[in-house]
């Protein structure tokens, strides 16, 4: 060992140091600069740093809320409600806010796709001309054996174009259906109003002026018919003059967000909403509660019912039913909000009958659209879906076109849609994404998203103010996807029987013609050009002054309404629990490919990004499972595995599972995540033709596995009570 460093080694060391530091300095990427990347071609009229706002329509659900999209440098950066719009007055729900992630989703399709083997998910990209001529040829060959299925959020002008196409081909009219329309009870409500008032229209409820509201399983603040507007209405309900707060009672087996906001949650057995409504009507008639008008109407509308067995079926006391009937009958302006009819359409009619009994004030029946040329996508009842599946299965459908509805995912397997699809000659889907319907189609036509498209939406329900929301592109189309309207017009020109029905050069010309038929409205403007400009600029058409509220006509039901006891599917000894399938207010049924919706915690459980099985804590203890344990839920129709969430606000004999996950397609955020409870449901219709999806029984078996669940809450506080008190009934 040297006692000191020699000059040579010192110089060597110094050289090494110098070399190292120079080399270190020469690394590329020593500092990563922030880059400033301007456009290759700047969008016109988009000055840097100054936002432009475009009014359009939200297509998250069929309600038709008006939106304002804030666009910076040609990119949509925020969606808010349109403050001028009479339906939502500037408010917007989470689903609407998440629309940006539909526009900028990385899994968007950008070219038409064709597969040689349906279901293989191996598609070849086609140029648009080739896709159009193939599509036209297939539709032409099918003659009148063409079936068209549309989603309820389809723009009115597209429904119109598809209807005209069907008529020109001699094919049946397009069918409008999706799972959400069933869970929000659209068709059942129209049918109930037809039975009671002779008008097959939707009804909306003026919560703000009501003192007592009974909701029979209607999650109107969650994934219901018009959640944003009902949110506003609920605010008015709770802020009535002189400090009045209204009284809301929610009848349902599993506490939804609406039940959580209610003053009283009555946990009735699934499928008994109609029985309870009819029992209340019967009690009003029999015990003479309320005004003589109400008693008389109750006597006319309420069918015979055994109160004791109805109460037992629902799991309530007869005395409780009497108190509820008294409160309703003696209220100043009571309202009943019907559920979704998945336990039988008669149940919806029975709930609506309570409104008829109350006198009908506070309920607005949907009127006609403000111009005769306007078309609305009206969801069909389940019976029509079954009829279509039957037609498909018998080989009577040679070409199936679908738009805006993912039926291959949104129907239970047992409904037989996928099996029937095998017998259809040619299947074409219009969609911005490769969803299950696209994956099971021959051709997928890359559709533009709603933020890049034109159209209109007749607001429904309209809460007494007829309105039409306009739709315009808020950004230049991001890719080579084309709008279905233009595709239809181009395709029709190649089909001799249809060419005559489609004379417009493009869909905007068609839209201008339709919008030109609107009368003078709030936005004003003289002449067609000015009216069209105002229609787009203000986000739609509505009347200049609110119309006088139409009094509800007296009910015209021919016979008293009678609700049958629920017919549960599954032997109670093998399947001891009830199954309640519901839509979480944020994810809904179709939000799985939007990370903002996936990542927003469910308001009542704080769960996100997964499916859960909500089990009452006492029941969970009996089964020997706790939160995060994976259980298998089996019904006579199928099975599902998902982790447990010990949820105190569900009946001990009921298991609740949310919809929305369990996709095999629909992109990276949706695929292979969670499980779909549609696998647990049957395909047959119940009594009255509605799907019998509320009356399925199930069994729950622990699997021995558990998963790490991400939740935004302190688990012991939920499960054990704040002071480890446990829960009543244990």
């Amino acid at each position, binding site marked *: *060992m040297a*006692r*000191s*460093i020699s000059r040579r080694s*010192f110089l060597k*060391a*110094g050289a090494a*140091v*110098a070399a*190292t*530091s*120079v080399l*270190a*300095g020469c690394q590329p990427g*020593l*500092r990563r*600069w*922030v*880059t*400033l*990347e*301007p*456009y*290759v*071609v*700047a969008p016109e009229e988009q*000055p*840097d*740093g*100054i936002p432009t706002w475009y009014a359009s329509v939200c297509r998250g659900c069929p309600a038709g809320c008006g939106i304002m999209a804030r666009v910076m440098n040609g990119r949509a950066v925020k969606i808010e409600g349109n403050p001028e719009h009479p339906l939502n007055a500037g408010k917007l729900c989470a689903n609407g806010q998440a629309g940006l992630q539909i526009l900028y989703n990385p899994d968007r399709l950008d070219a038409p796709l064709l597969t040689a083997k349906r279901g293989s998910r191996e598609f070849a990209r086609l140029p648009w001309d080739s896709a159009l001529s193939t599509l036209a040829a297939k539709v032409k060959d099918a003659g009148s054996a063409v079936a068209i299925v549309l989603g309820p959020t389809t723009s009115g002008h597209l429904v119109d174009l598809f209807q005209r196409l069907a008529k020109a081909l001699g094919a049946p009219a397009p069918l409008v259906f999706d799972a959400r329309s069933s869970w929000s009870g659209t068709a059942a409500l129209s049918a109930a109003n037809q039975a009671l008032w002779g008008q097959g229209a939707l009804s909306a409820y003026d919560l703000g002026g009501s003192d007592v509201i009974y909701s029979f399983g209607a999650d109107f603040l969650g994934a219901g018919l018009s959640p944003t507007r009902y949110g506003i209405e609920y605010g008015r309900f709770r802020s009535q003059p002189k400090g009045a707060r209204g009284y809301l009672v929610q009848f349902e087996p599993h506490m939804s967000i609406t039940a959580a906001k209610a003053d009283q949650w009555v946990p009735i057995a699934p499928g008994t909403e109609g029985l309870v409504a009819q029992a209340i009507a019967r009690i009003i008639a029999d015990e003479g509660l309320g005004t003589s008008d109400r008693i008389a109407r109750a006597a006319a509308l309420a069918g015979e019912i055994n109160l004791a067995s109805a109460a037992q079926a629902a799991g309530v006391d007869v005395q409780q039913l009497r108190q509820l009937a008294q409160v309703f009958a003696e209220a100043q302006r009571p309202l009943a909000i019907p559920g979704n009819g998945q336990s039988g359409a008669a149940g919806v009619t029975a709930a609506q009958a309570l409104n008829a009994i109350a006198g009908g004030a506070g309920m607005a029946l949907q009127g006609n659209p403000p111009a005769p040329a306007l078309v609305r996508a009206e969801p069909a009842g389940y019976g029509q879906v079954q009829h279509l599946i039957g037609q498909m299965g018998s080989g009577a459908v040679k070409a199936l076109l679908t738009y805006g509805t993912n039926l291959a995912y949104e129907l239970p397997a047992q409904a037989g849609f996928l099996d029937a699809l095998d017998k259809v000659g040619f299947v074409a889907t219009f969609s911005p994404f490769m969803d299950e319907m696209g994956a099971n189609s021959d051709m997928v036509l890359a559709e533009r998203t709603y933020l890049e498209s034109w159209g209109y939406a007749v607001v429904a329900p309209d809460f007494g103010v007829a309105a039409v929301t306009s739709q315009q592109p808020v950004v230049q189309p991001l890719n080579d996807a084309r709008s279905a309207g233009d595709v239809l017009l181009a395709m029709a020109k190649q089909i001799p029987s249809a060419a005559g029905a489609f004379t417009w050069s493009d869909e905007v010309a068609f839209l201008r013609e339709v919008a030109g038929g609107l009368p003078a409205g709030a936005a004003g403007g003289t002449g067609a050009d000015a009216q069209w400009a105002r229609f787009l600029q203000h986000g739609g058409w509505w009347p200049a002054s609110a119309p006088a509220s139409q009094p509800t006509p007296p009910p015209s039901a021919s016979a008293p309404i009678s609700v049958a006891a629920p017919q549960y599917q599954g032997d109670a000894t093998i399947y001891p629990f009830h199954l309640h399938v519901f839509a979480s207010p944020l994810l809904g049924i179709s939000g799985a490919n939007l990370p903002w919706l996936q990542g927003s915690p469910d308001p009542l459980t704080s769960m996100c990004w997964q499916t859960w099985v909500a089990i009452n804590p006492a029941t969970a203890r009996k089964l020997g499972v706790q939160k995060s344990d994976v259980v298998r839920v089996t019904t006579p129709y199928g099975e599902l595995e998902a982790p447990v969430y010990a949820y105190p606000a569900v009946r001990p004999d009921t298991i609740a599972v949310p919809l929305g996950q369990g996709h095999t397609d629909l992109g990276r955020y949706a695929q292979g995540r969670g499980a779909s409870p549609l696998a647990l449901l049957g395909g047959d219709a119940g009594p009255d033709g509605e799907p019998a999806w509320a009356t399925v029984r199930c069994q729950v078996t622990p699997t021995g596995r558990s998963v790490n669940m991400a939740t935004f809450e302190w688990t012991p506080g939920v499960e054990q009570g704040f002071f480890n008190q446990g829960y009543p009934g244990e």
Partner: protein
Amino acid sequence: MRSVIRSPFFRRVFIAVVVTVLVLAAAAASYISRTQAAPQQPIPFPHALMVQAGVQCTFCHTTATESPSPGMPSVEKCMGCHKMIATTQPAIIQLAAYWQNKQPIQWARIYQLPRFVQFPHDVHVNAGLNCERCHGDVGHMTVTHQVNNMNMGWCLACHEQQPNAKQLMDCVICHH
């Protein structure tokens, strides 16, 4: 002290420490000087040539009087002139390649205020400040670089000289 250094062990330690400190100092000097230097740009864009040719700042930075952001010219803007001007210069050939491939130019950003500061160009330019006031003599720069250390003190030094200093010295005027 001398007795410590005389001990062979401590001598080695001392030399090792000195050498380490020198290495670190060299590296630090090299890294720090690199952070202060003007960034390397994908195309060697010389402001001096443009300004001497008579091009105004707002010809390319179009929204300096209208928007908080002054705007960066698109490739289309450059090509508007350079389709015809100086087309044989290497830098212009580079530019034309971006245009042909429809690729945006990833300029290295020179001025980057923290995100909690909202600086509006339009207010300042419309108040009569010309670009050189803050950005230096860009008209004579070949490689664009930052001349002023734009920290809060520097901003406030001007703000407190104004007639409406009371408003301009309020936190919320920039931090909102």
